């Protein structure tokens, strides 16, 4: 089956303890495209992206209501196995977080925990994932070195390769470039443009220029509300809301 819409987010409210961080969010995220969640710090964009693979389940005091449909199944229904779900919906984090293991083991781990033990297949998948993450040429001679021997940008591409290895349908990026220099950032962005041909990508960023460069759709969030959502081109050229315009022109945030 081919799905046009990856996520349908309907009337989602989210709370940490008593504090409401998302207010009545409605949003459709399309497959094979990049959707940017943009806004200043504390606007709820990271909370929203972490609802999509249920990483917030790990946070004590977190509550959510409303509905998130992923490919026509309710993400938060009781029948969903959250480990299967996270396998389909990969995630790349703000700070590169490779495991304290070799480059090879970092990629192979995701496959091993899902029961893959065939050495040849593992080798193939490690190579394919590293190639897809544009890292293979830089590391092919030192797959058994520690992942910490890589530079920050390389570590982040390793994390992307690690996510790709388990064959997800969606990859969530939570400010993936905020700890990287401009050259490493450019490489990650180039990679994302390539990956969107096959995956639904969602990226959280506070950087308007980055949203403009790589996304097809942009949602602008402020204090837990979606102020504006639309195609990136339209949102950046003719913003409807003057708060969006103010943010884009750097008047606040």
């Amino acid at each position, binding site marked *: 089956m081919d799905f046009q819409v990856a996520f349908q987010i309907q009337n989602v409210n989210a709370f940490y303890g008593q504090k409401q961080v998302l207010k009545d969010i409605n949003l459709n995220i399309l497959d094979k495209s990049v959707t940017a969640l943009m806004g200043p710090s504390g606007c709820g964009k990271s909370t929203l992206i972490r609802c999509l*693979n249920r*990483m917030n389940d*790990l946070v*004590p005091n977190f509550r959510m209501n409303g509905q998130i449909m992923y490919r026509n199944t309710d993400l938060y229904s009781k029948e969903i196995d959250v*480990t*299967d*779900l*996270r*396998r389909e919906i*990969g*995630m790349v*984090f703000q*700070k590169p*977080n*490779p*495991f*304290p293991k070799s480059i090879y083991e970092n990629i192979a*781990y*995701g496959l*091993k*925990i*899902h029961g893959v033990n065939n050495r040849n297949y593992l080798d193939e998948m490690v190579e394919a994932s590293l190639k897809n993450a544009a890292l293979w040429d830089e590391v092919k001679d030192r797959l058994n070195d520690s992942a910490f021997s890589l530079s920050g940008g390389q570590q982040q591409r390793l*994390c992307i390769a*690690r*996510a790709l290895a*388990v064959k997800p349908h969606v990859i969530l990026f939570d400010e993936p470039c905020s700890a990287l220099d401009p050259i490493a950032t450019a490489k990650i962005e180039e990679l994302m443009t390539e990956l969107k041909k096959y995956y639904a990508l969602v990226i959280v960023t506070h950087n308007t220029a980055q949203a403009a460069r790589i996304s097809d759709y942009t949602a602008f969030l402020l204090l837990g509300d979606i102020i504006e959502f639309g195609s990136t081109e339209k949102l950046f050229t003719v913003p409807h809301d003057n708060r969006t315009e103010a943010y884009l022109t750097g008047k606040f945030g």
Partner: protein
Amino acid sequence: MNKIISNKRINKIFNAVGLGSTLFGLLILSILLFDVISDGWRRLGFDFLTSYPSRKPEQAGILSAWVGTVWIMITTALLSIPLGISSGIYLEEYAPKNRFTDFIEINIANLAGVPSVIYGILGLGLFVRGMHLGRSILAGGLTLGLLILPMIILTTREALRAIPSSIREASYALGATRWQTVRYQILPAAIENILTGIILAMSRAIGETAPLVTLGALTYIPFLPTNPVSFSKTIPFAHFSLQGFFDPFTVLPIQIFNWVSRPQKAFLVDAAAGIIVLLIITLLMNGLAVVLRQHHQKRW
């Protein structure tokens, strides 16, 4: 201007006071060490390690004492390590954070501070009398196991807490279960710190005298616990026995205590030699802990 000069003076004074305090501790320690070694080194030797205690100080040895210590330590480890690590993992990685787990946490921290003689009384009531284990190695080992259990739980939790949460998130985001995350990411990263804590707890247990005396450990044992493995020339050649766990025992600190309280001067020499052996064991264990800790720091 005067203010700055007086601040500098205070700094210098503290520097001198700090150095003095440090040297004072070291000085006392080296006097003690020198005293013990000069008294005891003459008695040290192969005979000392392979002889039973005796009425004659020049023939007395620590064979039953160090073998008893080894047995007790093994029993202690068998109880406290699996229980302590599992409890630590459960409390840190699995347990929900609520009032009940808070209550458990506080009490474990309190248990780690309970005087050891109280564990001896507990062991006497529960293991020796309640469970009819008698004054056996099992009763002693279980008592010391309970004594260091809270320490092992606490050090396991600390070691797990030191692993950045980004590692957990990375594993969960790939679809790993909680157990897979603990087993393949958290534990391997934390194991050296856990081992360090365990060794330090064990090296404390090795010197414990009070709980074992309370328990009624004997001071004169002219035999060894039953060998767990014995061999014969007929089938099945090897025989296994758990009888040793139910045998009476003594340990190094009790043997030392016994010698110190004897009126004859010559027994003091035996006591000093015993102390040297105990010190060497503890220092070796602490050294191992230091090596593990440094290895750990290098990797992160």
